[in-house]
């Protein structure tokens, strides 16, 4: 029975990592798009748009959620359901907080007239950061599903499911780091 799980779980892990490779290529293409169109941006330029404060706050939320999901994983390894529940809840909350700040950020931009169609720099900013936000949102939904299943399915398979999720969540975090480094930082420092 244990080998049964290991074989199939191994398949899933590899499959999911490959899926993330595909996603990485997608994001890389969007980064390239951003680099190309940010160069000649006028009216507005990135420096006129970006605001350090919101980026820092949202980053704190999202990056620390990589830690909490890690603890949830550790808890799953020793089959500590209570620990899982706590850390998973913390991750959901951090994810929601990130989304809250990001929605606030987009709304502020919008009210300042920095809309999707204002210029191509903004367009490429929104389609990149927006796709990332969609990933965060999807991840939050995924965690809620995990939470539903936490007590109703065998703990070994629950652990497997959560492991796959944490790959996803770490990936979303890594993309965010790239966004900080390549999208925001050059125009905030």
């Amino acid at each position, binding site marked *: 029975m244990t*080998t049964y799980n290991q074989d199939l779980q191994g398949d899933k892990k590899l*499959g999911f990592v490959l899926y993330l490779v595909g996603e990485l*290529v997608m994001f890389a*293409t969007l980064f390239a798009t951003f680099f190309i169109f940010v160069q000649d941006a006028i009216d507005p330029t990135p420096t006129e748009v970006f605001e350090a404060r919101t980026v820092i706050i949202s980053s704190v939320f999202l990056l620390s959620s990589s830690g909490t999901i890690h603890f949830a994983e550790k808890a799953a390894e020793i089959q500590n359901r209570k620990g899982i529940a706590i850390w998973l809840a913390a991750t959901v909350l951090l994810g929601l907080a990130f989304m809250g700040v990001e929605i606030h950020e987009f709304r502020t931009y919008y009210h300042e007239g920095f809309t999707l169609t204002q210029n*191509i720099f903004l367009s490429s900013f929104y389609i990149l950061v927006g796709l990332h936000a969609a990933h965060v949102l999807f991840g939050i939904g995924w965690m809620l599903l995990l939470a539903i299943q936490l007590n109703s399915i*065998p703990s070994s398979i629950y652990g497997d*499911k959560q492991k796959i999720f944490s790959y996803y969540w770490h990936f979303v975090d890594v993309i965010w780091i790239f966004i900080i480094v390549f999208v925001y930082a050059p125009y905030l420092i």
Partner: protein
Amino acid sequence: MIADLFGRKFYMASDTIGAWVMLTLTAILGIILITRAKKWPIIREYATTTHHRKIGVLYLLSATLFFMRAGIEALIIRIQLAFPDNNFWVFQGEKFNEAFTTHGTIMIFFVAMPLLIGLMNVAVPLQIGAQDMAFPYLNAVSFWLFLAGALLVNMSFFMTASPNAGWTLYAPLSTDTYTPSAGNDYYIFGIQVSGIGTILAAINMIVTIVRHRAPGMTLMKMPLFPWSTLITSFLILIAFPVLTIALYILMFDRFFGTSFFSGPEGDPIYWQHLFWIFGHPEVYIIILPAFGIFSDIISTFSKKRVFGYGSMVVALAIIGLLGFMVWVHHMFTVGLGALVNTFFAVTTMLIAVPTGIKIFNWLFTMRKGVIRFSTPMLFAAGFIPTFVMGGVTGVMLSAAAADLQYHDTYFVVAHFHYVIIGGTVLGAFAGIYYWFPKMFGITLNETLGKLHFWLFLIGFHITFFPQHFAGLNGMPRRVYTYTAEDNVFVFNFVSTLGAFLMGIGTAVFVWNIYKSFKKPQKAGDDPWNGRTLEWSVPSPAPEHPFENTPQVVSHDPVWEAKLHRDGELPKASESRTAPIDVVSWQPVMLGSLMLFFSLAFIYHVTWLQVTLGIAVLGFFVVRALTDEHTKKAKEDQAHDNV
């Protein structure tokens, strides 16, 4: 005729009305025939299956269907071009643009791709000693997403909104400023949805090949079709996401008012880069599997191990790598500068080297072999010279300076048909004849098969050889007519004749399938005296093909067993857990959901977009709560507790 739907007006030309009538009649006839023959259970079986062989058959069946549609389009195009200043039916001007656009799009994405992915599904698990694909459920999802996308592109014609910017969808023509009608939206969503299916299929292939090989089958003992599948899958995994994003960005341009690819700020050249960064690897995605099929077939029918196996693998890998470094050869005339053009000209020419190695290896495999020209081998033999000609024109095109002359002429059209039909389509035919016994337990009729081959091959050369000269005489591609003074009439006329010969050849193929089911010739497990593992399992391949997992000790294990072990494969002492297949309506439901979701976008119906978007998300919930792994784990647990 004018109809009102979704608040839009639909104008119907006579050809569209004709098509509707045909479609309706065919559907009614189909339903009657299926009911009369009491075949509904079979339809249901295939609609809910997750088994690799059946899914492979579904891919092949859809590919054949779309081949006929796009083939008819080709004939229409050829009729329109048969004479100077011709006016065939309604197929001039914009209608012609639509015809060549859907012809190319369907042929690449919905014929070449599914033919190969279908054959991979049928053969690869069996060739490597796996019980099924690694993720049977995902496999079904891939297929139904593919079909949903294919149906979208195909139905556009019936909605009088065919895409019309070429299969390359060049901007700014493809932006809403120049083509506001829904046609190119059908392209965007159709290719997007099926592309996601293709990416998932590639992941499935990689995991299957990496983790489900029989014990003892090291990578360097693996047959070449699985090898080419593995490399192709990596190409898909890297190239298709670029297309996904290209279409995503174009969608923003067309739906949400951005202007990435047009306007004073936007950059149409960027579309070309994105498209060809995907597009050139794509042409290798559709040729490498064919190389793999031919390698296996040539080896079997020459009764010899494939010559230079190691160099074959290395050549595949190098072609795969170089395939990502040549995309600008489609853009030599853009004016990116001498240095850029030179670089990409050189990398392009380099590809001819590994390709040449493969050609010579095939020839050396045949040399001093005991050759039998059964139908699959005939196709392989026809492939070699045909493909070499396509390669030669490829190298000619790769000389950047000369390409300024060739570019966008019929010379290019001739080139890519030589490689795609000469390679991919002949390869797919060969593979279908070769593995038909594993799919259905019967062989296709050999006489009809040979007739099919000769008609198709001769028709092919008559069609496309003259196009080289039409191109050299200056005939641009994608024009709906020419004048008598253009000096291209004879070439076009001959080409049209050849096209009809190919059409007859294809009809013989379809007839052959029908005949072979009517008067089935039972195939044994090993009709071709094969060498690789698929010939050690029953025909058709059962749900769990390998009763005992074989222990692989050499190349061509079945052949080795015939020589040294009275045909008995050694049994492995241990085997891994088989994937869990299920019977489920979910994949086909997801496909339908995605189809209607896309339609809601294409026709800008916001409430439907929201509803169906939620439904698609709901699908993930249903899937997560009903997956077979959890069910199995629960059962096991209940079992343990007893």
